[in-house]
């Protein structure tokens, strides 16, 4: 097993079957997507604050450009960054090594799912260059707008004119991405169940493995109806059927339902892996067992089931049955309870611990604080259907989901990067740059997202290219808020270059790790060499303990690796 062969660049980045290499391929692909999404965010934020300015590197933003930018920013960040980074990358890097095995259950399937992902990325990027321009109908792709040429006012001119549109390409990209993630999810699921190291019972697995698996299963079921719906939408666009066409008795609301039936569990698919990452980091850095391991798993399962019953809170004013809306509102409020339990368990882990303020810990604490205080709690505002009448489709919603997604996706990913980078490369990320990166990101993320709450309360509705037409949105402090948000967002985006520089610099020149276990952690990935060889372990571990046995009584050191008898 320990025959680690040196492979060339092409082999490593295109044909390798090793789960770590595939994870790295996913990561680089997603870096590409994120830089596009981030660039779009920069352009439209600049346009919002300074509508007349020619945005540097882009030029003047027209209404059409603006719609295209926000749509693709949303799609890229939700579908390719969040889902890809947290399921594919984290799952690929961590699952096999954390459960103490050599690779995925189906390495070839893993490779194929990466290729599907790559195809989806290519299709997505190709969609920007279609004859009629990129997609501009909102990332939710609500039908009458996303079906025809409504956005462009041109008549139907045959199949080719429909096929070579951004709508078709984006939908195909989404189908390919879902297929990729479905295959990946099945792979994770089977790997976890069948390839665990000797002694690794289900309740000795690290939380992050649990979370990725629950997320994969949740994804698998919630996405089914949407896949069917996507095929129907593709037929509507390209063949001219009428599934969502009100002229033929079709119903645009049906797509909204299907989309959010996937879309809401998707939020939890995105949320669960970072919660797992936070569990690892908080427990390791508090030098204390994770508080309520089984409780957290039970609450997650409960939240997973509940998350399939709350989707219509995205549609309170979309014309759904008001009585049903009441039910969905109550269920939405109820789903806050299991998450409150999970967050409280994390906070309880901090208590009576011995906290180390390492970099990953800072990211983790920042994520917990922001997610709970401003993301989770404003969820109560929006879950209450009455206030949602006013807040729906305003900047309040934008601020809310940036406060839920940014701390989990971005902070969670960075926490994972700073935590596991040394394991998978054998070198540390630079600490000083990391600290600067953290504080700038933390401050300017708040500077960007908090004003949006105030703008939303003032009635600023979403996806408007130019607010100057609305006098009530140009009253005194509001343009200032918009400028604060923009300047913060721009600095936030620039800050990420620090990380990119740090990442590639440390890859080549970073400080080498002194030991295999710099954080003195318990889980199995720290018990092999850094970077792990092909096949992960020289000697396959046998597991005796749970993953969070820090400060176990009657031990001379404060951590007990899982494979230590």
């Amino acid at each position: 097993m320990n025959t680690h062969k040196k492979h060339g660049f092409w082999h490593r980045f295109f044909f390798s079957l090793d789960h770590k290499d595939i994870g790295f391929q996913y990561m680089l692909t997603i870096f590409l997507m994120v830089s596009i999404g981030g660039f779009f965010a920069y352009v439209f934020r600049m346009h919002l604050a300074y509508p007349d300015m020619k945005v540097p590197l882009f030029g003047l933003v027209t209404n059409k450009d603006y719609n295209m930018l926000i749509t693709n920013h949303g799609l890229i960040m939700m579908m390719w960054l969040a889902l890809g980074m947290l399921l594919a990358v984290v799952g690929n890097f961590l699952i096999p090594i954390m459960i103490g095995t050599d690779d995925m259950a189906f390495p070839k399937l893993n490779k194929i799912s990466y290729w599907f992902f790559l195809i989806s990325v290519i299709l997505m990027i190709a969609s920007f260059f279609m004859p009629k321009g990129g997609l501009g109908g909102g990332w939710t792709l609500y039908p009458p707008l996303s079906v025809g040429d409504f956005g462009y006012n041109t008549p139907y001119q045959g199949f080719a004119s429909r096929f070579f549109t951004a709508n078709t390409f984006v939908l195909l990209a989404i189908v390919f991405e879902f297929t990729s993630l479905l295959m990946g999810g099945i792979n994770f699921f089977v790997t976890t169940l069948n390839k665990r190291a000797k002694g690794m019972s289900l309740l000795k697995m690290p939380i992050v493995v649990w979370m990725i698996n629950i997320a994969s299963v949740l994804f698998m079921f919630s996405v089914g109806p949407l896949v069917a719906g996507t095929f129907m939408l593709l037929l509507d666009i390209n063949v001219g059927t009428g599934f969502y066409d009100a002229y033929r008795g079709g119903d645009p609301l049906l797509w909204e339902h299907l989309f959010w039936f996937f879309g809401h569990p998707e939020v939890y698919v995105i949320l669960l892996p970072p919660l797992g990452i936070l569990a690892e980091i908080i427990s390791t850095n508090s030098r204390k067992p994770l508080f309520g391991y089984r409780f957290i798993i039970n609450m997650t399962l409960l939240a997973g089931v509940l998350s399939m019953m709350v989707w219509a809170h995205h549609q309170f004013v979309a014309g759904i049955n008001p009585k049903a809306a009441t039910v969905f509102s109550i269920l939405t409020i109820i789903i806050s309870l299991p998450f409150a339990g999970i967050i409280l368990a994390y906070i309880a882990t901090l208590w009576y611990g011995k906290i180390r303020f390492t970099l990953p810990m800072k990211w983790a604490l920042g994520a917990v604080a922001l997610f709970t205080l401003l993301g989770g709690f404003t969820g109560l505002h929006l879950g209450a259907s009455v206030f949602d009448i006013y807040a729906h489709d305003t900047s309040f919603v934008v601020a809310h989901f940036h406060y839920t997604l940014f701390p989990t996706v971005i902070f969670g990913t960075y926490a994972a990067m700073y935590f596991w980078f040394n394991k998978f490369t054998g070198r540390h990320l630079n600490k000083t740059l990391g600290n600067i990166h953290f504080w700038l990101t933390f401050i300017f993320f708040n500077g960007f997202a908090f004003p949006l709450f105030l703008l939303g309360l003032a009635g600023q509705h979403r996806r408007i290219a130019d607010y100057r037409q609305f006098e009530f949105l140009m009253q005194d402090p509001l343009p200032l808020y918009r400028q604060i948000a923009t300047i913060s967002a721009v600095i936030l985006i620039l800050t990420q270059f620090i990380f990119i520089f740090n990442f590639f610099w440390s890859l080549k020149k970073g400080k080498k790790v002194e030991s295999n276990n710099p954080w003195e952690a318990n889980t199995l990935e720290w018990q092999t060499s850094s970077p792990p060889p092909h096949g992960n372990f020289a000697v396959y571990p046998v597991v005796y303990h749970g993953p969070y046995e820090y400060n176990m009584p009657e031990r001379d050191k404060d951590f007990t690796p899982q494979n230590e008898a």
Partner: protein
Amino acid sequence: MSSHKAPGLEHEVWVPAEPDYHGHPNYFKIYIGLLVLFALTVFASFIGNPMIVFIVVFSISIIKGSMVLLYFMHLKWEPKLIWILLALALMTLTFLIIGLYPDVVPVERYLVPKP
């Protein structure tokens, strides 16, 4: 710490199912049963009232489907996990149909002329 074979690899070599684990129903009997139910389905379609036909035919379909699942696919002898997976799929669809019903069926809609 002792070395042992990579876990999971032991399943690469598949051994014939042991009789106590993989039950062996009489496949031909099940097949005949399916054909009988299938004939019933076709006859039931002559009842007339679409609602009754729907209920009868759909229930027979469920019986047929579960027969294929249980015996042909050996679900009866599979561990609980598989049952849970299928139950989750069923649960998903139940939520979907309950959530969609009030917004699709009883709603009054009209056909919008094309602009």
